[in-house]
């Protein structure tokens, strides 16, 4: 521990007498504001950003080309077939929706749980949520056979006098994902308004002042506003909490309410939610590590934050592993031969390669986070995040494809191979995702300044007073200098 203890940026020291600071360095309100908002307003955009943006925009172009081709030719351009009617498109949908869980989880659930360390990363995670949900939303829309009538899924009055079928899990999906996207967007935007006002007030260009001015809706930091704002934020967090649990539950209903062996499982909702949080945190980490490195945010997004995330990854990864084991147990214990075979086939059938990739990445890899050295070493954890991302994509692949390819009647057993269009569409969705992330870090405040300010020691109006247990400002180091802003 000792070498780490000398590192001024290491706040992961296990010392029960001295809680780790959440914000490092000699930062006050001013320096925080400057450091974060200058990324958007002052600093010259790094050349690397332009290179990265060119690449991701190109990939986004590929995505739309593939969608255009799909639109002209039909869903047959993918590798789908009769037993496997859902392939990469649905896998990608579940994958992206899953990733979209971290943001709201961090914002909402950790907010309700008074986890102050969330403030440094919640903006980033929420943004990522929105972008992941956008990527996710593309797939169910384009995967239908007749894209031009997809609006029939909405309960709109029409001359056929028909309504959608509310018993279908796909319709639940429409509502769940739609609600989730909407509420996440509202939540993200609400949280961002004070920071947009900061940008407005620091912007020097007229255009910037106007645009950020419009977005900031006239925020002027009035406490009467803050009062309702905090209430609204709390309520939104309260609403988003069951929502975040429900979205992946509903997505899991797509599978769980079907009767295909390997899909028809009551364990799916919790298992999907755990997996979603698992993959979401991994994706947040994947993006956060380069971002904090390149934009000098290590003092705000500290090793402590990363370590906490790694602990959550460890916890949810273990839940996922437990779920895998439970599935097998139930498959055997139920005595249902079709169910048993579905799982034997997963592990040892034609798709066993996918299954074992999934298990290695999702179950074995995260267990390394038990080791403190592993969960506090940045390059190692970044590699782990990549593994988890891969593993979680394969989890969805395994669930979707291996269950479908061999169901009840052996006569209809088949095999599914993706086509180039499948692959490019998926790669293109990453292009879109990273394009949006790049635009976000270039044009919007990456760290929630107003929120971080609240957890800075100097923010405490009662500093010096004895802290109440569970107080919102709980973990402020007693030894930290007072009135740093003076």
């Amino acid at each position: 521990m000792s070498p780490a203890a000398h590192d001024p940026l290491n706040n992961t020291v296990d010392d029960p007498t001295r809680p780790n600071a959440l914000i490092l360095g000699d930062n006050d309100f001013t320096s925080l504001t400057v450091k974060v908002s200058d990324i958007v307003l002052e600093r010259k955009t790094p050349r690397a950003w332009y290179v990265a943006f060119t690449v991701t925009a190109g990939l986004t172009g590929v995505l739309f080309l593939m969608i255009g081709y799909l639109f002209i030719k039909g869903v047959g351009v993918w590798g789908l077939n009769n037993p496997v009617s859902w392939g990469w498109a649905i896998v990608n949908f579940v994958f992206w929706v899953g990733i979209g869980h971290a943001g709201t989880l961090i914002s909402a659930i950790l907010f309700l749980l008074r986890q102050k360390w969330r403030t440094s990363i919640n903006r980033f995670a929420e943004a990522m949520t929105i972008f992941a949900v956008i990527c996710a939303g593309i797939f169910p829309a384009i995967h239908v056979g007749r894209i031009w009538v997809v609006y029939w899924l909405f309960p709109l009055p029409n001359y056929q006098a028909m309504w959608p079928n509310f018993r279908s899990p796909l319709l639940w999906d429409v509502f769940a994902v739609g609600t989730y996207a909407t509420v996440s967007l509202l939540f993200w935007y609400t949280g961002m308004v004070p920071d947009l006002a900061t940008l407005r007030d620091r912007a020097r260009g007229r255009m910037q002042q106007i645009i950020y001015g419009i977005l900031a809706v006239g925020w002027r930091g009035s406490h009467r506003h803050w009062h309702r704002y905090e209430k609204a934020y709390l309520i939104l967090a309260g609403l988003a909490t069951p929502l975040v649990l429900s979205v992946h539950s509903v997505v899991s209903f797509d599978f769980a309410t079907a009767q295909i062996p390997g899909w028809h499982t009551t364990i799916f909702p919790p298992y999907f939610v755990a997996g979603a949080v698992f993959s979401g945190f991994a994706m947040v980490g994947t993006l956060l590590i380069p971002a904090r490195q390149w934009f000098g945010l290590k003092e705000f997004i500290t090793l402590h934050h990363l370590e906490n995330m790694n602990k959550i990854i460890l916890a949810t990864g273990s839940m996922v592993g437990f779920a895998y084991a439970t599935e097998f147990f139930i498959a055997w214990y139920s005595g249902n031969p079709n169910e048993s075979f579905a799982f034997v086939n997963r592990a040892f059938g034609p798709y066993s390669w996918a299954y074992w990739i999934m298990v290695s990445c999702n179950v074995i890899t995260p267990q390394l986070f038990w080791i403190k050295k592993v969960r506090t070493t940045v390059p190692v954890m970044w590699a782990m995040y990549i593994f988890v991302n891969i593993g979680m994509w394969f989890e969805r692949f395994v669930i979707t494809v291996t269950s479908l390819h061999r169901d009840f009647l052996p006569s209809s057993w088949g095999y599914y191979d993706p086509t180039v269009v499948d692959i490019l569409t998926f790669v293109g969705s990453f292009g879109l995702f990273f394009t949006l992330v790049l635009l976000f870090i270039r044009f919007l405040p990456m760290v929630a300044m107003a929120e971080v300010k609240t957890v800075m020691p100097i923010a405490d109006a009662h500093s010096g007073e004895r802290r109440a247990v569970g107080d919102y400002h709980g973990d402020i180091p007693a030894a930290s200098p007072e009135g740093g802003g003076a």
Partner: protein
Amino acid sequence: MVPDHNESPQSPGRGDASTERFVFPKWTNWLREASAVLALGGLVYAVILVTGVFSPEMSALGYAPEQPVPYSHALHAGKMDLDCRYCHTTVETTARANIPPTATCMNCHATVRTQSESLASVRESFETGKPVEWVQVHDLPDFVYFNHASHIQAGVGCISCHGRVDRMDVVEQVEPLTMGWCLDCHRDPAPNLRPVEFVTDMEWQTAGDADELGRRLMEERRITPSEDCATCHR
């Protein structure tokens, strides 16, 4: 809106006078109400668009294309009181109500108005065997299977779908013929039922209560219109 304050704090927290500040003019506060109105209006507009403008009612109602022969139903079916079935012979027995062959026209027009200019193309068709190309007015999508015979046998009058053809010089579509419209009658056929012998009668009115008669006919003739999708779509 030039700020009236020139003192600039020297801290990095900006507010310095080096740049001009943009302050939104006062009228922008009206945009709040304006955007709310716009959002609500947009919603209403979208609903109207989907239910109304996209509906076949908008495009099909009143459709009255010009026909190659200026045949007047008002004259033949109205003034001269020809029965519909004189020309549309298969309507009672088959799915389609046929358009009469030229020969049917010539039954009369071999002797009546033999020199009329407007009948020139009819005579030509009869001589050459080349059919007259009529423009279809009541045109259902091809995935809809409508059967004239079963409706006629159930006692649905021609008028229910085609309107007062006996008053039309040029046939036009007077009912929307949309799925919702079909369903209205399938769900409550009574008002549109009449004794089978009067199906082609354009003037027929029941002396009593139409609904009551309809219900009686439904019972007598065991008319239970189906709402199953497969009835019309297969």
